[in-house]
């Protein structure tokens, strides 16, 4: 046991370090990840310790980052790409959707592309445009990709290592507004001790209604559950962790018990993760539902100027409001 208190950012950093120690084919690529350690310092100190051959400051072009990472993976490397902000992943979209996602399938299993694409995502940090996006649905809708998001230091530390160890390409969404949240991590544990990468998890048990969230909204949902408890309402909170594939078992179990479900995410609701979860839960738990699945999401507008984001983003009140509406159905 060597439990430390780490921020999510630092837990990612130690996770990357472990992965690089474990396998010298693991290389990091991205903009400003070397001396600067990335704009969020997630790769802090790694170039110093592993050298410029393994921590590569790339030219400023995201298609280039992902496209060359594919070639490096074909050559036997395990590239971990950093996209500086959510809003800058789109120049790489073609390479991700047409190449990364399909390479294994097209080659009938001859090609394995063990790549990770790290994307700090979500809003709430007072940033200018393109720095607060939640593009996860674009990737989760894409067959051939796996998509995950962490919400705690412990998950950050282990999930990034699991993603790197995975032989499938993984899009790894980091909840940037939570980078500074702290929690305990036992960094002495191996990956075997961690929960499977593609499993969802009940992070707070409850009996009256279920909340499903992921990434930055897990904390919001937990806060909502705490507040609801004061009003005598017991909310069960589930952290999806894996956005593709979804691990729906714990969600179905929960909804069968509670009869009510609220899904929370920052991304616009229209054709988002919440829609899929609603559709599946309705299909699987049709006779258990006391009310339709409700969604609390970012509005269906472009992400607004930062002085509007507090109202734009789901918060504790909006989650509780949805819970109320569910009970009022």
């Amino acid at each position, binding site marked *: 046991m060597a439990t430390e208190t780490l921020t999510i950012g630092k837990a990612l950093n130690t996770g990357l370090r472990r992965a690089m120690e474990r396998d010298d084919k693991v290389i990091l690529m991205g903009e400003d990840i*070397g001396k600067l350690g990335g*704009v969020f310092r997630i790769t802090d100190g790694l170039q110093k310790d592993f050298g410029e051959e393994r921590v590569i400051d790339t030219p400023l*072009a995201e298609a280039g980052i992902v496209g060359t990472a594919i070639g490096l993976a074909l050559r036997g490397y395990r590239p971990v790409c950093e996209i500086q902000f959510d809003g800058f992943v789109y*120049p790489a979209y073609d390479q991700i959707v047409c190449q990364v996602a399909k390479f294994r399938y097209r080659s009938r299993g001859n090609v394995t592309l063990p790549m990770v694409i790290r994307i700090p995502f979500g809003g709430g940090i007072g940033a*200018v445009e393109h720095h607060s996006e939640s593009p996860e649905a674009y990737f989760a809708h894409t067959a051939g990709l796996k998509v995950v998001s962490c919400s705690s230091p412990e998950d950050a530390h282990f999930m990034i290592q699991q993603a790197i160890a995975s032989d499938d390409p993984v899009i790894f969404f980091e909840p940037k507004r939570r980078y500074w949240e702290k929690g305990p991590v036992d960094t002495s544990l191996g990956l075997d001790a961690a929960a499977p990468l593609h499993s969802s998890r009940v992070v707070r048990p409850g009996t009256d209604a279920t909340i499903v969230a992921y990434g930055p909204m897990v904390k919001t949902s937990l806060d909502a559950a705490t507040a609801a408890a004061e009003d005598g309402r017991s909310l069960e909170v589930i952290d999806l962790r894996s956005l593709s594939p979804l691990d729906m078992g714990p969600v179905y179990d929960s909804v069968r018990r509670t009869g009510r479900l609220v899904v929370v995410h920052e991304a616009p609701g*229209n054709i988002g993760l919440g829609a899929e979860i609603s559709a599946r839960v309705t299909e699987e738990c049709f006779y258990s539902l006391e009310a339709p699945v409700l969604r609390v999401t970012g*509005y269906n507008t472009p992400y607004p100027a*930062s*002085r*509007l984001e507090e109202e734009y983003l789901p918060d504790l009140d909006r989650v509780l409001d949805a819970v109320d509406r569910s009970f009022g159905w």
Partner: protein
Amino acid sequence: MTKGEPAPRRSGATRAGRSGGTPPEPEYVQLLTPSGERVNHPEYSVDFTAEELRGLYRDLVTVRKLDTEATALQRQGELGIWASLLGQEAAQVGAGRAMRTQDMAFPTYREHGVLYTRGIDPIMPLSLFRGVDQGGWDPVANKFNLYTIVIGAQTLHATGYAMGVAKDGKVGTDDGEAVIAFFGDGATSQGDVNEAFIWSSVFHAPIVFFCQNNQYAISEPLERQTRIPIYQRAAGFGFPGVRVDGNDVLAVYAVTRAALDNARLGQGPTLIEAYTYRMGAHTTSDDPTRYRVSSEVEAWQAKDPIARLKALLVKEKAAGEDFFKQVDEDARIEAVSLRERVLSMPDPDHSQIFDHVYAEGSPLVDAERKQFEAYMASFEGGH
């Protein structure tokens, strides 16, 4: 500044007069040395009247002062972030003043100096960096596009706009229109920028690509983007490239004016590399001590764009102490006004979240606006 003939088209840069200082300067067009000496250039000599020189000086000082004020406002929590132009004043003022009224500019997020020369209220970018809006000015009416943060994207917009200028028959004469696209050294690596080169070459668009090579893309030095000088990129696409001393407002003016006039006369695109230096941090969120040494910054301090123009004005007796004082004082007043206006800037009304998503509306947005308003009203009810 006499308008002069558009300069003949040329590829590559000429060796500029070397001024005394170390380290050796790269090859570029220079008309004014760091110590304030005028240099002649066979192709790019422009005569400036004393009044014009004073005007440029005033621009440089004002632009720097406003920028410094914005940085201070950010430090005090009044702006979310600020991308300072410190050190790049000459590149921006020179390029901005070289534009004619009818010309259209496509900036990045750092072109506050160009914005100023377009006559746009300098408060405009501050609302963006404060988080009040995402660009308050009318880009078409002001002939100055919205700031573009996604690196390189605007170069294609500029190219398309220039294709439209040509389609409108607004090239080939002296009063034709030209377009200028701004971007950084880092941006040259983006596919979009290279596609813009291709399109503007193929369609012979009236455009100037103005690259401020400030030596860094955040922490990454130039050699992460290219092994050869940036202006030489143009040769691969079949149009001329030229490097200019980006800290020399006279040279930037002359080179940009010539390139814009070439464009408006129907001679197609030019790539200008303005060789300069980002004296401050990338943005106020950045910590440049992590990736560069102070001696480098000091070396560039010696090439300051304002000091050299002041030296020239003094040497040529084109301006005296009174003038310099007055300019400083006027800039100070402008900065104070800027500050006051930022401090009193109202936050946007929440319902703006739902404004202007579509020109012709959307039932989904309308429904959400309604829900939102009802939800907000529920709090007023006395929660």
